[in-house]
């Protein structure tokens, strides 16, 4: 099937079997190998990308279903050679060891900070009706769909907290 995908702002025309997941389309057809295949069953989060600004597991969706959607992968987070504040924070807080889960962590955390800024609650939010500060407990809960087998969670949480506290990031806004 002929499929046109909008990936990191560029339109990419691909000839795909309907069975091709978005992850396989990105890695094997569009040449964007930043998104990683861990479990291929939506359990590890290594394949996380953003579709229309929302984080999803790219292994659990078909590429043909995403025609006209705006897809952002880890390759699209930086502006040229300027890393995003979150990417810089991952480096300064050592938020990785082997790095395999990192693209998924970065895409997931980028979109998670937007969710928090919109005032979305989480399972550990005490008061559903009022905005909540992004505590370490909140960050851990909201990032539970991303596994790090090197167990770099302390650095990951610190990096995300730093990016969340950066002046450019809004937090605690009402939905």
């Amino acid at each position, binding site marked *: *099937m002929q499929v046109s995908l909008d990936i990191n702002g560029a339109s990419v025309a691909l000839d795909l*079997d*309907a*069975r091709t*997941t978005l992850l396989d389309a990105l890695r094997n057809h569009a040449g964007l190998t930043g998104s990683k295949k861990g479990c*291929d*069953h*939506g359990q590890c*989060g290594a394949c*996380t990308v953003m579709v229309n600004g*929302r*984080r*999803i*597991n790219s292994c*659990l*969706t*078909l590429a*043909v*279903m995403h025609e006209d959607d705006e897809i952002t992968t880890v390759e699209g987070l930086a502006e040229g050679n300027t890393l995003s504040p979150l990417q810089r924070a991952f480096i300064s807080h050592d938020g990785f060891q082997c790095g395999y889960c990192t693209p998924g962590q970065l895409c*997931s955390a980028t*979109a*998670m900070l937007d*969710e928090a800024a*919109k*005032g*979305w*609650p*989480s*399972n550990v*939010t005490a008061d*559903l*009706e009022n905005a909540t500060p992004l505590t370490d407990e909140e960050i*851990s*809960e*909201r*990032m*539970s*769909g*991303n596994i790090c087998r090197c167990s770099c969670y302390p650095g990951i949480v610190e990096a995300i907290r730093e990016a969340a506290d950066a002046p450019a990031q809004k937090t605690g806004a009402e*939905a």
Partner: protein
Amino acid sequence: MKSFDYIRATSVAEAVQAGGTGARYIAGGTNLLDLMKLEVMAPDTLIDITRLGLDQIEELDNGGLRIGALVPNADLAADMRVRRGWPVLSRALLAGASGQLRNKATTGGNLLQRTRCYYFYDTAAPCNKREPGSGCAAMEGFNRILGVLGTSDHCIATHPSDMAVAMQVLDAEVEIEGKDGTRRVELDEFYRLPGDTPHIETVLAEGELITAVILPPAPGGKHVYQKVRDRASYAFALVSVACVAKVEGGVLEDISLAFGGLAPKPWRNRAVEDLLKGQAPSEALFEQAAETLLAEAKGHGSNDFKIPLTRRTLVSVLGEATKGAAA
């Protein structure tokens, strides 16, 4: 994955026309594609329903809500109307899956997700749900996550949804579109118990499409969703309890309870609710309710623990729901 024909529907009528034996609707796809990769499910045709516009949450004249079948779980959980009026539903949704999955999984698809019984996913094992008549490997196998209520000699699978447990406690109805028109089914009647046909899980006919879930007006009262699981986040329930309770003058004026992780469907037992209604909350009363709930419960070895776990969870939830309400 087996190959399939892909159809992108542009209207509900077109989707329903294309539906039928061998075809499956796909929206979030977070469970269906997983099952297709393992060839547990192998539809001939996938009908993409993501562009049907069923992604709105509308307020009804009676004060209820009509939740479009394509509303993502994340959006439903975050909707301020739901958080204020039906908080047990937000709580249940937030207790399930991960941020990524909640963004993709839809309201209709969540209701129709399949059991996470290990043997259903293992195509080398017998499973009456996957292959009718082949037997049940779970009965004598690793069954600690499986059911103790409503099961049969043919299947002890549990329904994995948290959302559906909350909808069950809220008396939700499912709106269904078929070739013959629209119908509404109470969620309690939507799911079928396994009996000797565990492969038939709902009352949906071939080709019927869920278009919405209808919630009655906000019930008020205290809402609790307690989920007990093997880890603190991103795990299915071993036992979950959804509770909406109203206490007036030291007496439980009204109470609804639904249970997850125990049965092939979100479980509800009106006798338990009737026993509690009109009574003053007490530990002894809560124990009596648990005894009634679990009178018919049957363990299968490694899931025996679920029976006392359910008793303790229910007593704890009833305590929380009636806290500070003593006369």
